[in-house]
């Protein structure tokens, strides 16, 4: 890609946008989305920086490392082991335990006998040959399996691979299990069976309650699967409503390993994910406005001689400079969702942005974005900008009340039995 492409930005259009996005990323393969990163799109959708990086498929983790703000994600090996062991337990004997859970208390689903299909393995695979993990092949097998499901065959699909179009690129997502057809309790026998996505999670449900943050994350992830599955059925010419709005969350019960099934309504999450996916292709306008100098090329050329470091296409300084040219919308919550968070935080702090202290602080400061401006308004050393008179009045009142209160002596204890 030649560096002088100002014409491309002047005349956007879908092809121009795609070319510009590729140029932004440089000669490295795009980072593909998974269910977790798609779910993360629904958090803080107003951030242009993340929208651009995601659309261009830039490896944000690597980018954060290169500019000296590595993300601090990581999962404990104990948690991983436990998660795998629990999933194995639920899926043992062709998911017999899973089907039993649906038929038993409290769900009482009407579940027919299912044919178990493991879409993760090749049908006639030679056991000696290495397991084929070709995603396109696996997706094709999934497609065929669900064509049979659409024809009314009860299939229990393990390790399916689904596809979602994310910003013009195919992203593959892997539901934990399955889609299985069942009728909810109380539904008449003639009612059509629906397909359910089952998500196996190893966090415990204790006395009917689980960590709301974990349940929320699981719900958004499952919504991605529901959406991907519905798109597949639409492609197959089947009414996508065959996939239920509810998903099945399979978790350990109390302090034991005994699994229990919980029905989770994810309509809200589906709508949120859909909205964000629909928005991604429209970022053409955003891309067109970018300075032509913005560039996140993370490629490193191999070293010319052994033992020497490779030549980076862009230095850390250049990358950081490009970042400053795409506006971020930092909030403290970003730390849990976005690899760039520590960089954006440091930037927000250095700029004295109220956002660095959290949305509620910014709102309470009357929407004034700069801390120093808010402090000057509060101290009366700066006038209020247009539309900030109410904020200024409150801030001045707060500054005066605070400073006055510091001079007042608090009420002293007047004996333990003072007030009734």
């Amino acid at each position, binding site marked *: 890609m030649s560096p002088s492409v100002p014409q491309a930005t002047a005349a956007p259009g879908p092809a121009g946008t795609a070319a510009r996005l590729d140029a932004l990323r440089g000669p490295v393969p795009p980072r593909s989305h998974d269910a977790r990163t798609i779910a993360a799109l629904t958090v803080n959708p107003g951030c242009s920086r993340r929208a651009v990086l995601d659309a261009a498929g830039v490896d944000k983790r690597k980018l954060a490392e290169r500019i000296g703000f590595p993300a601090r994600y990581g999962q404990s090996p104990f948690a991983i082991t436990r998660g795998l062991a629990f999933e194995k337990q639920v899926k043992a004997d062709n998911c017999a335990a899973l089907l039993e859970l649906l038929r038993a208390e409290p769900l009482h689903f009407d579940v027919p006998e299912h044919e178990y299909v493991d879409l993760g393995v090749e049908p006639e695979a030679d056991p000696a040959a290495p397991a084929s993990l070709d995603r396109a092949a696996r997706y094709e097998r999934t497609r065929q399996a669900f064509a049979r499901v659409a024809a009314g065959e009860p299939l229990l699909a393990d390790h399916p691979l689904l596809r979602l179009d994310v910003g013009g690129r195919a992203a593959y997502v892997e539901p934990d299990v399955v889609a299985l057809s069942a009728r909810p309790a109380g539904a008449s026998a003639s009612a059509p069976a629906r397909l359910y996505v089952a998500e196996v999670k190893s966090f415990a449900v204790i006395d009917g309650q689980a960590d709301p943050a974990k349940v929320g994350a699981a719900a958004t992830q499952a919504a991605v699967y529901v959406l991907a599955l519905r798109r597949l059925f639409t492609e197959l010419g089947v009414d996508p409503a065959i996939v239920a709005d509810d998903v099945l969350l399979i978790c350990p019960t109390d302090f034991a390993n005994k699994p229990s099934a919980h029905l989770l309504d994810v309509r809200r999450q589906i709508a949120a994910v859909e909205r964000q996916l629909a928005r991604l292709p429209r970022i053409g306008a955003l891309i067109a406005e970018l300075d032509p100098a913005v560039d996140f090329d993370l490629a490193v050329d191999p070293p010319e001689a052994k033992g020497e470091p490779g030549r980076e296409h862009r230095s850390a300084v250049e990358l950081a400079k490009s970042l400053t040219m795409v506006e971020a919308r930092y909030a403290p919550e970003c730390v849990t969702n976005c690899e760039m968070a520590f960089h954006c935080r440091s930037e927000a702090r250095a700029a*004295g942005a109220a956002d660095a202290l959290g949305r509620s602080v*910014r709102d309470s400061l009357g929407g004034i974005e700069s801390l120093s401006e808010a402090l000057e308004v509060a101290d009366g050393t700066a006038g209020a900008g247009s539309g900030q008179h109410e904020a200024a009045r409150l801030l001045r009142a707060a500054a005066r009340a*605070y400073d006055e209160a510091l001079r007042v002596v*608090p009420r002293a204890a007047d004996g333990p039995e003072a007030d009734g």
Partner: protein
Amino acid sequence: MSTLTALARARAARAGRAVPITAVRHVHVSDEPLVVIPLMQAGEAAAPLAVMAGTDRGAPTLLVVAQPRNRDQRFEFLTAFAELLVPYIDARRQHTETVEATRSREEWERCTDAPQLILPNPGGVEALRLLGRSARFRTVDGPYPVDARVPLLGRYLTWFADDRAPMPGSSVCLALTSVLAQHWATGQSALEDQHLPALLSWIDPPDGMSGAAAALLAEDPDVVPPAGPATDPAFDTGVLAPLVRAQEEARAADDMRAVAKAEEELRAALAAQLEPTWETVWRGIDVLRALPAAASDELRWQVDRGRFTDFMTGIEDGAPPQPKRPSAVAAARRLADLESAQQSYDRTQAIDDPLVLARYRVGGEAFAGRITFVDAERQEIKGKRAWPRPLVVMQTQDEVILRPGVKLASPARVNQTVRLRAVRPAEAGGFEVELELQSGMGRGKTPEAGSVPAVGEERCYATFLAEQRGTRPELPDADQTPWTHGGPPWPHVARAEDQAEEWR
């Protein structure tokens, strides 16, 4: 968040150091608190990894579970934890005082002290709650017999972490980050305030360092280990997992010397993770102790002592363990308790603390100023009697948005109700407020001496101080609960399924 607190955060960010948002300490700090720092195994519901606990800063006790997924080891750990906690609790019951009979209660004996658990953060409290839940239904017989102290420990932990910790104004089980954030505003977000070392760095930075810089440093898990209950995943991968494996392999090979060595190494590794937090928690307690106690502190601690006495009496009288889920009436009563405790806590904090009161002034629920005129002789004739209704005029710089007729009270004289008669802009700027005193002046035709404010006096009046205190809802007795609400309840029997509850 109030505008005042937001402003305080902005000021803290500018100063690089936390600023106070209270003038006094609104939690009780016991003379001998028990600091408890739990570490839990990642991925498990309630698998303790280690606990560092004790009342002596110089001599913490470290309890370690070599293989948290092993039920026997977990049970040994809980027994050891009980051996530490039960004597501490029993020591608080040595002395009692007699409480005179009231309309609702006969004369009774109240403990003169109560236990106090201090944990680094709300996560620590939640870990105790889960440990309590996993232990309180165990029995000394049945399929998984345990030491008699284990179910008792479960009931104690449930009382601390589930019954009392969420109760506003209670100090028997405190999460240090919440308490510190209640008293100081930092220049970082509320989310970041949940990190104890970072929060304390803002409040009490090391010499020659700004709070902001110290907090940034404290966030690095390689420099300062996290305060639990979750461990740093990098520590799990690099240190813990290999040590647990070595210990298991030695056990499998029946090599007791190797087991002892591996366990010793595991202990040392966990101690190194916990010791910095131990020191940080005590430093946090020092910082809290340096604040003067609120005027209502004694009274609130007295309530805690009373609840403690009742709880211990209940256990002695053979009360069943706290249920997994409360009945309808118990839940409604609990909600009413929480609500009235919150009201009373908000109220007493505002009365005791001018900085807390200032938040209400900014929000328009209160105003403060100087008394400029007093007519103490004014009366109102009602029926055949004349009642004192002194008139007071006050000058305030606060914007008064309250309407005439609203009832007010002042922290200086909480039981005196005042009615707002009129508000008008003052010539010199600010507002002139005309108030009528309605009560709290004695029984005579003229007000008692000292019951009417004097000209020149500074006063603050607030609406919420004059509000009627909430009355408790009328709820049926347990045996009168209709079946629609799950009643009447059956007498509690230790259910076999509880004892048989699997417990890995």
